[in-house]
């Protein structure tokens, strides 16, 4: 395998005295889509937060394009081309839909994504662009959150539970849009509760259990029993 875009080496993460991740090793190649699966509390969201530098890491634990970025501030990591679609969307309530998108692009990285491109992807957002972001439905808010991350033209995009709390039909729409989003040479990490969906859109997967990687492999060939074992920790 050539030099990976992102590699995690023995990543630990803590919330105060509580350790959420134990020595996680993980690689993402350029253009690759990885799924992160695991039960509630397995450390999936913490993993996303650590990569984005929202939690403090040691520098060498997160390596990106040959640079140790673990100890950088979150805004410096974002400027290097890592974008997060956070769990629960976390839009800015006092900004309109369009302002939420514009602020995502404020980093000023060049690439295919711009306001018109986002509006082509999600036409409903153009109609609603002057509304307050909190007045939208859950699915539309998720589109804004995805659009906001894309506006930064990232090389690596992290999706944290993008289907959480959404109606099945909306989830279907969003997953239908995903290949078009990731197809542009972008790499992606997808955290997802729905294992079938996660495996369908990814080429490889990592399963977390109580803060450790319990299984990794190719999404297409993995056996269901193996995943159940890694997921629930039953022998």
């Amino acid at each position: 395998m050539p030099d990976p875009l992102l590699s995690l080496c023995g990543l630990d993460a803590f919330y105060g005295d509580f350790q959420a991740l134990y020595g996680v090793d993980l690689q993402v190649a350029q253009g690759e889509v990885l799924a992160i699966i695991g039960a509630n509390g397995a450390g999936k969201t913490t993993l996303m937060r650590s990569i984005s530098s929202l939690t403090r890491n040691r520098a060498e634990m997160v390596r990106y394009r040959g640079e140790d970025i673990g100890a950088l501030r979150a805004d410096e990591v974002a400027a290097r081309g890592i974008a997060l679609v956070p769990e629960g969307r976390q839009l800015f309530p006092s900004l309109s839909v369009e302002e939420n998108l514009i602020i995502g692009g404020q980093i000023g990285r060049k690439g295919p994504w711009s306001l018109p491109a986002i509006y082509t992807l999600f036409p409903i957002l153009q109609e609603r662009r002057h509304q307050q972001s909190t007045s939208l439905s859950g699915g539309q808010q998720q589109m804004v959150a995805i659009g906001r991350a894309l506006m930064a033209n990232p090389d690596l995009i992290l999706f944290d539970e993008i289907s959480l709390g959404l109606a099945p039909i909306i989830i279907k729409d969003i997953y239908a849009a995903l290949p078009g989003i990731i197809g542009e040479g972008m790499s992606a990490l997808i955290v997802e509760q729905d294992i079938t969906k996660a495996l369908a859109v990814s080429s490889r997967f990592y399963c977390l259990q109580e803060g450790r990687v319990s299984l990794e492999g190719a999404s297409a060939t993995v056996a269901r029993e193996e995943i159940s074992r890694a997921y629930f920790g039953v022998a």
Partner: protein
Amino acid sequence: MEWVNVVVQGTLLGGLYALFAAGLSLIFGVMRLVNIAHGDLIVLGAYLGLSVTTVLGLHPLLALILVVPVMAGFGYVLQRGILNQTLGKDILPPLLVTFGLSVIIQNTLLETYSADPQKMNAGALETASVSAAGLSVGLLPLLTFGTAIAVIATLQWIFYRTALGRAFRATSDNPEIAQLMGLNRRHIFGLAMALALGVTAIAGIMLGIRTSFDPSIGGGRLIFGFEAVIIGGLGNLWGTLAGGVILGVAQTIGAKIDPGWQLLAGHLAFLVILALRPNGLFPRIDG
């Protein structure tokens, strides 16, 4: 007619109070920081104006060209150097640190300028007045009120029409996620404090032209500023102007009834509004 005059004078006085309050309102709105040293920073602005006018022989209004950037620069350094370190989940550290800052500023001014009351000389502007419809209105209060409107309109424009304002609002909404947009929270807060102290410099110079000042009056200006912000509703800049006007009118009406009642009437009006509308008259409506 006499009472109309009282209300007009009070309204214009409210412009000065709105200038006191605008910086407080901005800082609280962006970073939830209650700046106890705000009144002393206003007085510091007045003294810097005094130094510039006496040393360079400039008109106090021209001194703004120097004092505003100096205060803004001081604000940025103050925020990056000290105040950012106090911000967190606990609201007590910023209160204590700005209280300490207030003591430091007061004593530094005392050492440098002595306790004697000072005043800036604005020449003919101080006594000039315009008459219309039987009312005679001082040019300086009118100018102060106009400045307050201009300052608040500018702040409003910055907040809702510029990239900096978007960054302010996003950081205020959710500082963590705002960082993911490439915004360095410490820098954004520094800029907010710079802007607030720029406005504070204007407030200080307007104060210093209008009345005499000494190093101890910061606390009183802080109270007027707080009252204007809270009457108007936290986080609403036009509300802050309205709050300043209500406070000013209450004070001039009080003074009209009995000269000793000026301050009391203002505080009473504040208490009544606080009791009836604890969130102020025009609280910010958000999501």
